[in-house]
């Protein structure tokens, strides 16, 4: 069975929740991608209209420097989603790799890898990210790397369990007897069969990464040249009582995206992810 068929055959018909999730994420993602066509305003452009409520001219209002919030939310979405996507993917790739090796090799390598995984899991991930980013500097690349490299344990655990189940099955024994090298077995036999889990994990990890990124930028550690939603929320905090739109609206976008990705991941796994 080709890998593609294996993946596709495991995707269930979308449930209502999953469809809703795709819709939510889709709307926000489209908004971010189509930003230049949806608004003429410059997200970094200062203006004279300070702290004005949502109106026809500024659909989401403006902040204390006269910048249009709608534009900032849309362009900010690019950053938040981008960082979320890449760091999510990074953690899935890393986690799947470790999970595959640990689950398949067993024995000492498994022990060692699991101890390391445990160490990363116990460490408060977000606080560690804060410390590291403060030290190495807050560029987008650094953010992606740090978030991605701290989030893999969850995926690793899931993949490892699955591989352990598969390891005992006949088709693996058959491949071994056919003289296939371990690497080949991992790539051709095991990987397609954990693909469903990888897919689910990807969705959930991206959701988690988006939250992590917003956490970092809320604390002021986001890339200053590329404002993301978290930064918007931090700036809105200062004017909480005067300008409710500055905090509520970016948050809605954030919530929609994360909820959407979580629903998607949940739906893909048939509710078994949790």
């Amino acid at each position, binding site marked *: 069975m080709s890998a593609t068929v294996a993946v596709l055959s495991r995707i269930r018909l979308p449930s209502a929740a999953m469809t809703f999730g795709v819709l939510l994420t889709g709307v926000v993602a489209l908004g971010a991608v189509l930003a230049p066509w949806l608004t003429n305003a410059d997200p970094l452009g200062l203006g004279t209209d300070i702290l004005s409520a949502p109106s026809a001219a500024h659909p989401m209002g403006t902040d204390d420097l006269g910048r249009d919030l709608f534009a900032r939310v849309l362009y900010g979405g690019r950053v938040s989603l981008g960082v979320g996507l890449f760091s999510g993917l990074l953690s899935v790739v890393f986690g799947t790799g470790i999970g595959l090796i640990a689950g398949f090799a067993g024995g000492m390598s498994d022990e060692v890898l699991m*101890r390391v995984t*445990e*160490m990363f*899991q*116990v*460490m*408060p*991930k*977000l*606080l*560690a990210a*804060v*410390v*590291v980013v*403060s*030290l*190495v*500097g807050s560029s987008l690349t650094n953010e992606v790397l740090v978030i991605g490299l701290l989030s893999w344990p969850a995926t690793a655990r899931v993949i490892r369990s699955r591989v352990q189940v598969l390891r005992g099955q006949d088709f693996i024994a058959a491949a071994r007897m056919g003289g296939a090298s371990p690497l080949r077995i991992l790539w051709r036999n095991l990987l397609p069969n954990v693909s469903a889990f990888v897919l689910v994990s990807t969705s959930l990890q991206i*959701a988690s990464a988006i*939250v992590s990124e*917003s*956490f970092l930028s*809320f*604390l*002021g*550690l986001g890339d200053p040249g590329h404002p993301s939603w978290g930064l918007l*929320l931090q700036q*809105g*905090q200062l004017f*909480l*009582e005067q300008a*409710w739109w500055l*905090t*509520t609206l970016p*948050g809605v976008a*954030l*919530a929609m995206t*994360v*909820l959407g990705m*979580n*629903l998607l991941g*949940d739906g893909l796994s048939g509710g078994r992810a*949790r």
Partner: protein
Amino acid sequence: MTGLILRLLLKRLVGTVPLVFAVVALTFFVIRLAPGDPAFILAGEAPTPEFLAQVRAENGLDKPVWVQFMTFLGRAATGDFGKSIFAGRPVFEVILERLPATALLAGVAMVIASVVGVLLGVSAAKRAGSTQDAAISVLSLLGTSVPSFWIGQVLILVFAVWLGWFPVSGMVAARARYTGFNHVWDVAVHMVLPVTTLAVYLVTLIARFTRTAMIEALSQDFILVARAKGVGSRTILWHHAFRNAVVTTVTVIGLEFGAVLAGTVVVEIVFGWPGLGRLFYDAIYRRDFPLLTGSFMFSALVVIAVNTLSEIICAMLDPRLRRT
């Protein structure tokens, strides 16, 4: 029972030594991650040459790395986590000062979250498949998806700014100097919104995991056996099913404690609560790296302690986990 607790404690403590070591080692090396001279990191922005030299000497930065590490390790073991640049005082001292406020917030939030989460999870499991169950599941998903700082901000907007029921920020009313019961009430009123914000994430998580564990427990044979004995449904639900599911609940709380800690940082910022979270945030802004890394190490150790505690409690709850 005490003999059992002691044995478990000993065994788990031994198990955490490598973890603790790893955390300390990580903290040590993380400072050296930054580009540039570690002395500048530890001395702050634009230090005087004398101060710089002093920092170098205090931290033995001219000695070989492994010697530095040993010193660091030794100091950490005695509670010396370095000296805060901004405060000019030992990090540990500063942390202890702010600890009670955070402990109050996090402690209350965790207790409330556990109780509410368990009740929601059990009632959802009891009516599994019903609309009430589905509603709770949807709310759970919402609660875990939305970042806590935004929830905090929304709560302030609705309940403090718009409705005016609660104060907007702070732990105590700024100008008043309450004592005794008035003081307690003042703090309590200030605590409502931040505790709710902090608890939301945990409640949804606990509710979800408790529900799953309860459904699993209720499908076991021994439940049918208990019914055949004539045991009432309330007793079956709590004395048998929940008593089996509670291990999952405790495990979840232990595992998510790190997230709760991160939550306190943002909640304290949003609500102006004078605790460790605010300290951490200020340290970021002031680039007070000794304080930053020191607080990180402290929180990581607390997380390890909480994890160990939850493992011990699980072993006490489930006799099958006691095999030593």
